[in-house]
């Protein structure tokens, strides 16, 4: 906008400010209420969701529910194998995703030269983060179940899940590493440390709380994933508990899927109870992550 001769013309053509100001002010005030309600509407939906789930599932929560296996009779059914399966799968997923993700982030942040190759790597990682989870299931099916021959096992599912959450772990770890001030590294180099000594003994411990927070959040995403595990062979109706990583298995979200697909209302209620268990696990994990993040920001004084 040119700030010279025409400016005066523009001012003289502005509308009278006081003419409809009260109406416009009223509209603005009303709108703020509308916007507030719209914002809160989503939270109300969440509240209704939790309330429906708890109302339906509450009566099924009892000790046998946690130890029983699914059965044709709702009153004898439980989530024992599903809880165990979730535990095994997440443990295995973490065992793959954590080291590879953290080491990959270290490479990207500390070691990789700033050239086109690294740019492609970064773009690739953020694209992978946007691929639908069911495609990771197809990937796991083609590579782990069929090509490597692991079959419909915990191993296949955990590997597919690890690939799914790897971008999250890498991105979170990168941010944690980036937050470590350069002075820490430079001081260590100044004392004659090698690159790996600097990274392992100084940068990594400083970034570790942030890395752990990110990993915990990535794992909690993995706990709720259903599609990739269904495609790689998790069973929706499993009565036995797996004894090795090559066995068939089920996990909490797949169990929910199986029971929700049945028409009988009792199974729908069992699904609600299972949802309660899964949400409780997620709540514990996410609270741990948030507390960890709070501890980090309090402890770190550069």
């Amino acid at each position, binding site marked *: 906008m040119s700030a010279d001769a025409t400016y005066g013309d523009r001012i003289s053509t502005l509308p009278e400010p006081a003419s409809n100001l009260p109406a416009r002010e009223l509209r603005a005030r009303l709108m703020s209420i509308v916007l507030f309600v*719209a914002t809160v509407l989503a939270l109300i939906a969440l509240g209704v969701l939790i309330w429906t789930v708890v109302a339906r599932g509450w009566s099924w929560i009892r000790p046998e529910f946690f130890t029983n296996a699914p059965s044709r009779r709702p009153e004898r059914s439980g989530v024992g194998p599903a809880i165990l399966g979730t535990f095994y799968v997440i443990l295995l997923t973490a065992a793959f995703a954590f080291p590879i993700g953290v080491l990959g982030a270290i490479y990207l942040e500390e070691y990789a030269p700033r050239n086109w190759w690294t740019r492609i790597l970064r773009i690739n990682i953020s694209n992978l983060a*946007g691929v639908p*989870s069911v495609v990771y299931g197809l990937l796991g099916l083609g590579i782990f179940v069929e090509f490597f021959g692991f079959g419909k096992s915990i191993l296949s599912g955990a590997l597919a899940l690890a690939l799914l959450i*790897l971008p999250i772990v890498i991105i979170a770890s990168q941010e944690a590493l980036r937050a470590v001030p350069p002075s820490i590294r430079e001081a260590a180099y100044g004392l004659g440390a090698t690159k790996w000594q600097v990274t392992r003994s100084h940068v990594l411990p400083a970034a570790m709380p942030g890395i752990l927070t990110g990993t915990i959040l990535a794992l909690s995403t993995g706990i709720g994933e259903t599609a990739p595990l*269904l495609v790689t062979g998790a069973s929706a109706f499993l009565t036995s508990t797996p004894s090795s990583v090559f066995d068939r298995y089920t996990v909490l979200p797949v169990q*929910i899927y199986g029971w929700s697909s049945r028409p009988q209302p009792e199974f729908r209620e069992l699904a609600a109870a299972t949802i309660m268990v899964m949400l409780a696990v997620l709540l514990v994990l996410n609270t741990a992550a948030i507390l960890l993040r709070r501890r980090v920001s309090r402890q770190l004084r550069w």
Partner: protein
Amino acid sequence: MQSNVNPTAGLGAQVLAGSGGNQPLDLSGVRTRRLSEQLIAGVLFLCGAVSIVTTVGIVVVLVSQAIAFFLDVPVLDFLFGTRWFTAGNNPGYGVLPLVAGTFIISGIAMLVALPLGLASAVYLSEYAPERVREFLKPAIELLAGVPTIVYGYFALTFITPELLAPILPALRPFNGLAAGVAVGILIIPLVASLSEDAMRAVPRSLREGGYALGATKLEVASKVVVPAAFSGITAAVILAISVAIGETMIVSLASGAKPTSSGNPLEGMQTMTGAIVSAFSGEPSRGSTSYVSLFAIGLLLFVLTLGLNVISQLIAGRFREVYE
């Protein structure tokens, strides 16, 4: 901060210790250390390259199985056929009903998420006092943390029977509308937080210019901030559409497993993602046409979401240079 550097390991320490000047530097350990450093750098590089391997793996698996499929079923029949029925004697492998289901449900989801998400973004960015914002923003993020299977359950057992059926008597138990609404609720936080970021990036001077000319808060928000943040908001919307398209479990539970023939959201429909999952529940025989057809859908899905994500990133990159 505890230092774990062994002071005798570094050459620097020798320099410090040998201040007398008459001791030569002991370079004997350097060769092994350099070797181990290179080894470590190699391992780190491999870990970084896993992501490339993953992408290559996805492409290889999808393309190879899709090629096996297209040897049986011509590409045009797949892309433009109107009958998807993989079981039985007279199977059909036209993907159009699935694509239609995907876009109908995603469209409904955007109808829900766009107004509510944008409204939240405007409220949080322009209106809300700081303390309210600190509470509301993480609360909305909670919505994104709920596993999608739970939304599917909610759509199936609450949205359809309790919420929609009373007002829409023609509603079927499995329908696209409930699934669309649930997907919409799921992606509200995505639209809200990305749009809010775009709005917060608008310089204060633009707003203050508007206020100085006598505009109300609403006018500044709608006529100054939102248009200025337009490309960021568009990028957010495109990303949200991509997430909605990739959604699997909500549609599997709530909209049923029958591909649509009418496009009516009050009836059941199946999406591309839902078709993949429901087929695998039935354990199709490996190598059969119906088995590889799912990889063809997967390829279509992958290309679609990748394209949308890339477009979103390009548009978002554009908006950074708009202001000064």
